[in-house]
C-alpha cells in the first residue's frame, strides 16, 4: 500500500511538472504574442496584401504592437486588413498615420508597418481606418531593373565604340592619349599653370597685405567702411551736392529759357541782339544823341556865362576850390 502511494505521488509530481511546462509555455507565448493584452482594432484597405496572413505581426517604429486578426475581401478586388493593436500604444498612433506591408527581414514573414502621423492629428480610436500605402512591388522593381539592364547594354556598347576609337587615336581624347608631342605640350602647359598658380598665390598674398593695410585704423577706406560719423558727413555732403546740382540744373534751365528769348525778336533785348535794322536805327539814334549831347553841352557852357546862372556857377567853383 505504501509503495502504491509512493508511486501515486511520483506520478502526481511527474504530471504536475508536465503541466507546469505546458502552462509556462502557453503564458510565455501568449505574453510574447500579446494574446492576453488589452487591444484595439484598426483596419486598412490594400489593393494587394502580398501574401499577408492572419497572425502576422504589426509593427510601429520597429516595435511589435499587435497582430493581423482578419484578412477580408473588400469592394471589387481590394483587401481589408483588420488588426489588433495594443491599447497602450494607441496614444502614439495618430489618425493620419499610414499602414504599409513590409517584410520581417529579407525573406521573412509579411508584416504590417504603421508609420508617420503628425502630432497635430488626434490619436487613433477603436475601429479607425488607417490610410494604406502600397508597398514596393518586386515585379515592378524587376521591370525597372530590366529597363536599367537594357540601358546598361547600350551604354557599354557605346563605351566599347568610344574606347576603340580612343585606342586608335581618333578624336581629341584619342590624340591626347596617343600623341607623345601633345603629351609633352600638355606637360609644359601644366608647368606653366604651376608657375601661374605660384604667381597668383603671390598676388593673392600681396592683395591680402594690401587689404590688411586698407583695414588699418586711420585709413580712408577703413574709415569709410567703419566710421559711422564720416559716413553721415559724407551722406550730408552728397545730399548738399545733390541740392546744389538741382539748383544749378534749374538755373541752367532758366538761362536756357533766357537765351531762347534773347534769340527771339519779340522782346527788346532779343531785338537789340538780333535785328540789324534796329541796330542801325539804334546806332543812328546814338549818333543823334551824341550830337544832341554835344549841342547840349555847348548850350550849357553858353548858359554859364548867361546872367541868371553866372553867379551860381561861380559859387560852385569857389566851393570846389575850398574842398
Amino acid at each position: 500500500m505504501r509503495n502504491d502511494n509512493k508511486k501515486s505521488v511520483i506520478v502526481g509530481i511527474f504530471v504536475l511538472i508536465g503541466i507546469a511546462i505546458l502552462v509556462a509555455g502557453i503564458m510565455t507565448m501568449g505574453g510574447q504574442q500579446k494574446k492576453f493584452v488589452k487591444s484595439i482594432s484598426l483596419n486598412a484597405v490594400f489593393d494587394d496584401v502580398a501574401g499577408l496572413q492572419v497572425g502576422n505581426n504589426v509593427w510601429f517604429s520597429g516595435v511589435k504592437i499587435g497582430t493581423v486578426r482578419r484578412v477580408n475581401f473588400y469592394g471589387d478586388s481590394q483587401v481589408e486588413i483588420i488588426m489588433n493593436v495594443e491599447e497602450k500604444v494607441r496614444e502614439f498612433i495618430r489618425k493620419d498615420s499610414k499602414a504599409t506591408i513590409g517584410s520581417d527581414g529579407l525573406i521573412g514573414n509579411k508584416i504590417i508597418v504603421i508609420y508617420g502621423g503628425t502630432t497635430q492629428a488626434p490619436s487613433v480610436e477603436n475601429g479607425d481606418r488607417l490610410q494604406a500605402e502600397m508597398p514596393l512591388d518586386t515585379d515592378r522593381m524587376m521591370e525597372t531593373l530590366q529597363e536599367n539592364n537594357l540601358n546598361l547594354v547600350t551604354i557599354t556598347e557605346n563605351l566599347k565604340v568610344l574606347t576603340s576609337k580612343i585606342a586608335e587615336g581618333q578624336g581629341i581624347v584619342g590624340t591626347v592619349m596617343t600623341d607623345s608631342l601633345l603629351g609633352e605640350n600638355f606637360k609644359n602647359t601644366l608647368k606653366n599653370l604651376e608657375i601661374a598658380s605660384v604667381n597668383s598665390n603671390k598676388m593673392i598674398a600681396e592683395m591680402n597685405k594690401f587689404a590688411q593695410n586698407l583695414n588699418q585704423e586711420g585709413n580712408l577706406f577703413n574709415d569709410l567702411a567703419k566710421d559711422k560719423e564720416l559716413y553721415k558727413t559724407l551722406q550730408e555732403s552728397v545730399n548738399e551736392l545733390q541740392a546744389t546740382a538741382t539748383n544749378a540744373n534749374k538755373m541752367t534751365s532758366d538761362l536756357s529759357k533766357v537765351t531762347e528769348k534773347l534769340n527771339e525778336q519779340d522782346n527788346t533785348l532779343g531785338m537789340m541782339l538780333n535785328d540789324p535794322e534796329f541796330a542801325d536805327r539804334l546806332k543812328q539814334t546814338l549818333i543823334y544823341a551824341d550830337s544832341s549831347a554835344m549841342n547840349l553841352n555847348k548850350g550849357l557852357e553858353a548858359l554859364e556865362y548867361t546872367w541868371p546862372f553866372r553867379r551860381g556857377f561861380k559859387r560852385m567853383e569857389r566851393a570846389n576850390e575850398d574842398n
Partner: protein
Amino acid sequence: MSLTSNDNKPVISKKIDRFFIGLASAFTFVKRFFQEVFKPPFEFREIMRQCYEIGYRSLPLISLTGFIVGIVFTNQSRPSLSEFGATSWLPALISIAVVRAMGPLVTALIAAGKVGSGIGAEIASMKVTEQIDAMEVSAINPFKFLVVTRTVATTLMIPVLVMYTDFVALIGSFLSVNSKELVSLSTFFVQVFEAISFLDVFSSIIKSLVFGFTIGIVGCYKGYNSSKGTEGVGKAANASVVMAMFLIFIEELLGLQIVNAIRNA
C-alpha cells in the same frame, strides 16, 4: 455471437475476409473500451500504477531521445540555413519542428516501442497462461482491469511526456545554438515562442492524446487477441509495436491535414 465464421466458405476471399473480420474485431474492442471506461469501478489504483510504469519509467529514455533529437536536428538544419545566412532562424525552425511534429512523433514512437510492446507482451502472456480467464472466473472484469487502465494511462501520460520531450529537445537545441551562434537563453526562447502559436501547442496535445490512446489500445488489442503458446506472446509484442507505429504515422498525416485546414480557415 462469434465474429469468426463457422461456415468454411469465404464471403469474398479468405484473406480479405480475415482482414475485415480483424477490422470488425478491432472496432468492437475499441467500442468496448469506450463502454467500459465511463463505467465504475474505475480502478484508479491500477491506472496510477500504469501511469507510473508508462509515464515516469519512460521519462529517462524519452528525455534522452528528445535531447538528442534537439541537438541533431539543430546541427542538421544549420548548414541549409547558413547557406543563405539565416542561422538566426534556427530557434524558430527548431521550435516549429519540435512542437508541431518531432515532439509528439518521437515520444509516441519511443513509447510505442517501450510501452506498447510491454503492454502487448504482458497481456499476451496473461492470455497464454489463462490468467485472463481466471480473472473472469473470479468476478474481476479483465477488460476493465487490464485494457481500460493501460489505455487510459497511455492516453494521459503521452501528452505529459510530449511536454517533457519538447522542453528537453529545445534545451538540447539551445545548447547547440548557443555554442555556435552565441545566442542567449532568453533570446532563444523569445524566438522559440515567437514562431509557434496556440494552435500548434493544442494540436500537439490533442495529437499526443490520440497517439497515447493508439499505443495503449493497439498493445492491449494485440495482447488480448494473441494466439496460444509462447510464440503468440512474441508475436503480440511485435505486432503491437509495428501496428502502433504505423497508425501513429497515419494519424500524424491526418492530424497535419486537419490542423492545416483549421490554420487556413
